[in-house]
């Protein structure tokens, strides 16, 4: 499949087509910085001075490049599809090679980030448990109450940049009978994703 971009997006990218390969390489670096740290106007300023164009144009070009990569990841373009898409945008063969290398390198990373982005419900992150026996309380000084105390760490990821994940600890406890039951229920859940039915669904949606 070919990626179809809007006209103004194409226009933003068109600046790059006329540039030599090393400049395009620099733009790839700028795009990567954008992905990791967000926009950096100072760098755009210096780039604009070097190329003697408006900083605005540089920024648009960087954002256009980022958009191109992210959209490609979003549709999970194969390398071949990506090459064709880039060529239809008017890039030369050399340009295309550089972009392809960049795309291949960052594809997995961006895809992971995108898949995380979707749901802001807390995600399972870790579980620690310990077995303890309650031997006495103020009201009952001789008792043997086995308990399993658990620390469930949940993670909420909200954006691409790594700083915005928030972790929450939930302290829970249970008794052996319930523990066995819960373990069984969850194991059953896990088995169910490998069942014939689930596999059929997975196949039918591919």
């Amino acid at each position, binding site marked *: 499949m070919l990626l179809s971009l809007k006209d103004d997006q194409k226009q933003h990218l068109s600046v790059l087509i006329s540039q030599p390969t090393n400049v395009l390489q620099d733009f790839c670096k700028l795009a990567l910085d954008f992905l990791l740290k967000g926009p950096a106007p100072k760098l755009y300023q210096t780039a604009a001075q070097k190329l003697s164009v408006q900083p605005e144009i540089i920024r648009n070009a960087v954002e256009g490049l980022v958009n191109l990569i992210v959209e490609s990841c979003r549709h999970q373009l194969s390398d071949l599809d990506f090459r064709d898409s880039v060529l239809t945008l008017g890039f030369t063969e050399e340009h295309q090679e550089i972009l392809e290398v960049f795309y291949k390198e960052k594809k997995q990373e961006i895809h992971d980030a995108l898949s995380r982005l*979707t749901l802001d419900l807390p995600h399972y992150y870790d579980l620690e*448990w310990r*077995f303890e026996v309650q031997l006495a309380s103020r*009201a009952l*000084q001789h008792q043997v109450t086995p308990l399993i105390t658990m620390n*469930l760490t949940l993670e909420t990821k909200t954006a691409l940049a790594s700083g915005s994940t928030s972790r929450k600890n939930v302290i829970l406890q249970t008794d052996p009978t*319930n523990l066995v039951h819960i373990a069984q229920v969850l194991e059953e859940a896990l088995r169910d994703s490998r069942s014939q039915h689930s596999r059929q669904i997975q196949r039918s949606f591919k």
Partner: protein
Amino acid sequence: MELCVDIAAGLRLLGSPTAITEDCFTKLLDAAICAIVDGQKATNVSQLCNSKGDAIKECYAAVLSFLIEAARHDADPDTLSDTLLQDYNFNAQRSEKLVGIYRQHKTKLQAALSHIGTNAPHIIDASWTLDYCVKTTSLEQVGSFIYLIQFHTESCEEDCVSSVKFLCTQEELQDLVWKMRDAVRHVEKIANM
């Protein structure tokens, strides 16, 4: 098990046949057990109070304290009967009656005492849904299973069931299950120690 001076005095009063009649003694014991185990107000005791109200009230408090302290310290019925006979001047019949009541209701008393205290939320059940994620706002093709896991918990503050919800991918659930199974295995090991 130790009783303070006032309660010991009350218990001694309860043991003396001149102060408390046999009938009154039985009623006091029944009322005390009812009050602790079932949480009922003792109406028949207030009827008893018409004569010697102060003595009845003192004995009632003493028998309540005695039962609770004995259960709280998991006291042995035989030792208790010795103590009653020697330190509180009970006769054999009354001591047998009181210890008998204690023996009969000991676990219930302890269960009632175990309700007092604070605890972390207690998981009592788990439920799950298995979703197949087809498409999201940021990805055209996802194609992965997502579990929504829900732990049902009981907590001390309120009487109702609340829950902890979270998402899991297949791998994360595998991790969770392994950890749970590890815990189960540990508990089983302890059981077979």
